[in-house]
């Protein structure tokens, strides 16, 4: 209906006649219901902010004493022996494994997830959209331990020969160099993670693609654009901030995923030679902490793991902030 006039139904706020739309920030009428609801919403917001701050404070308070005792450079060392008289620990390896696996997951999951969302909103016949979307959402509800089990028992045997072929064919390329690790390589972890995060990307992208103003789409088609050109010039630009948000949520999960990774990963022995290869093992922050949580026997040991957790926290925080900035800039340009 609204498409005929060119005003999409979802558009809110500034209607053509401005006075009929209430000013959002001064809309309160001062009635009990308003005050209760406003209070509850404010309290929720404050509690969340306070929680994040308190978690950060907790991490810092616990980590600092251990960091003061640290005999190694925390950021650049590859040693991890937080116990004993002279504790020394560095996070370089965990950082590399975490970032590399999450990057692989993103490289696969974002294009794939966006493609699925485009199919569901632009290509799929109407009768298929609802059920197919529900199925994709169901993937997001699968517990991570199930992905872990599936990866270990079903997927790994299929992946091993493929990995062997890559190693022997493209071994000259540093990222694909041959290593002695057989099972849980960074590449393998990345692929399992990507399957875990695809539904997150798809669900959010689908929502926003579905909201592309019909007028834009019809305008593009009227100007002679093909289906693909219409998607490229209207749906994708409109959905970009949403896709970035989706990717960031997905990345957050990929960085922090613990159970499945702990289950699958092959950790390296002490003093293993450094390699850039994605066929190497290694531990992510989350798996390292989870693996050793049972043996937090002294404050220094515990502090070392908490310091690693702090880095993961900062990493996730930084990634999210960057995403926010990108989205805000996009908005500024498109308005």
């Amino acid at each position, binding site marked *: 209906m609204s498409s005929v006039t060119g005003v999409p139904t979802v558009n809110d706020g500034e209607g053509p006649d401005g006075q009929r739309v209430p000013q959002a920030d001064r809309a309160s009428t001062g009635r009990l219901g308003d005050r209760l609801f406003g209070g509850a919403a404010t309290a929720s917001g404050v509690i969340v902010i306070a929680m994040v701050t308190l978690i950060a404070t907790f991490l810092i308070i616990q980590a600092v004493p251990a960091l003061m005792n640290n005999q190694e450079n925390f950021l650049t060392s590859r040693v991890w022996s937080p116990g004993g008289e002279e504790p020394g620990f560095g996070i370089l390896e965990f950082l590399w494994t975490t970032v590399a696996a999450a990057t692989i997951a993103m490289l696969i999951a974002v294009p794939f997830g966006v493609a699925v969302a485009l199919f569901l909103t632009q290509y799929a016949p109407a009768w298929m959209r609802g059920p197919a979307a529900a199925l994709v959402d169901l993937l997001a509800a699968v517990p991570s331990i199930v992905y872990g089990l599936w990866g270990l028992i079903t997927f790994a045997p299929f992946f091993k020969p493929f990995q062997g072929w890559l190693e022997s064919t493209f071994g000259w390329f540093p990222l694909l160099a041959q290593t002695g690790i057989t*099972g849980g390589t960074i590449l393998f972890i990345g692929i399992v993670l990507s399957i875990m995060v695809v539904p997150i990307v798809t669900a959010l992208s689908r929502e926003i693609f579905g909201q592309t103003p019909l007028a834009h789409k019809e305008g593009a088609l009227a100007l002679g654009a093909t289906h693909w050109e219409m998607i490229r010039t209207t749906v994708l630009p409109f959905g970009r901030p949403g896709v970035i948000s989706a990717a960031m949520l997905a990345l957050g999960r990929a960085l922090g995923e613990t159970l499945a990774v702990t289950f699958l990963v092959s950790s390296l022995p002490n003093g293993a030679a450094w390699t850039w290869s994605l066929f190497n093992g290694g*531990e992510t922050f989350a798996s390292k902490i989870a693996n050793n949580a*049972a*043996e937090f026997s002294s404050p220094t040991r515990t502090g070392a793991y908490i310091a690693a957790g702090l880095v993961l926290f900062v990493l996730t925080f930084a990634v999210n902030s960057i995403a926010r900035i990108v989205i805000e800039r996009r908005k500024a340009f498109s308005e």
Partner: protein
Amino acid sequence: MSVSRTTVLGALALSGALLLSACASENNSPAPAAGGSGSSGSTGSTDCFSGNLKAEGSSAQKNAIDEAISVFQTKCADATIDYNPSGSGSGIKQFIAKQVDFAGSDSALKTVAVDGLVEADDAAKACGSPAWNLPMVTGPIAVAYNVAGVDKLVLDAEVTAKIFDGKVTTWNDPAIAKLNAGVKLPSTPIKVYFRSDDSGTTENFTKYLKAAAPDAWSYETGKKWTGKGEGKEKSAGVATAVKGQDGGITYVELSYAKQNTLKMAEIDTGSGPVELNAESVGKTVATAKPVGSGNDLALKIDYATKEAGAYPIILVTYEVVCSKYSDAAQGSKVRAFLTTFASDAVQGQLEELGYAPLPTEVATKVQTAVKAIS
């Protein structure tokens, strides 16, 4: 799925039966024959209590203590006993913090300072009396492997150390071939798997390598793996990894090796290859020397034992208790439960679960010590 499960069950039952028969034919210990009727003195009168008992610690003894708990609770319906298998370190920490009534641990309380803390002293302070280490369960550690076409493999300490240190890298290495005359070894590369989490199994296995092959194993011993290879999470992780990889080898508790139907190497201690079974493990436990005094039964295992027929790679798990609880009721609860745990009725069941029962001599000492808890 169902087929493989049946196979596993069948194999478990079979190996359990083999172990039972091996043990029964060897000595006249009443353990395997005990039908759980509680006729053997020590269990004759179980002191039931109502209320609950909390314990925490080693995951290696989880299945054993679960068995003891179910036996105890059958007799004493009002008692609840919780065992949280969170790891030895965590158990001792909770014991010192008086959060649990007793702790399970893969190693006796340390009497030297680690990270500035002396466990034995702290435990004694928490108890207000000396803390005792009571050996309760022995878990043999299998050197489990998966090599196509090799059903019987003999290793000695030195070759084992070299394999786990990445010095011997293929299965047809002359060092292995020398110990396995007549066996056709493939040229498959050796894939070593180790425990990526801190583990009592790692600690005891490296203690063995260090004691029996000091030249080949130069690393420190400890809960964290110091050799080469590829790390997997927990016993289940390493066992699964070996099962899925031709050429794989790992060290793992017997029960996991059995569950995954892995082949286990025989260990040549210098007096011939020794197979892992209840009898050969019992021999090693019997040679262990007590390092504690009186009723503190901390054992020092002679990993370098050369006694014929003794399987040297074992892990003894302890219950860490106060000798005198400040709350007498608490003491009598601990005593009642551990009496059942140390009884022949429970110890006799352990073989089926992949543990070895305590040799009669040690078991008697433990039963005496348990009676002295107050």
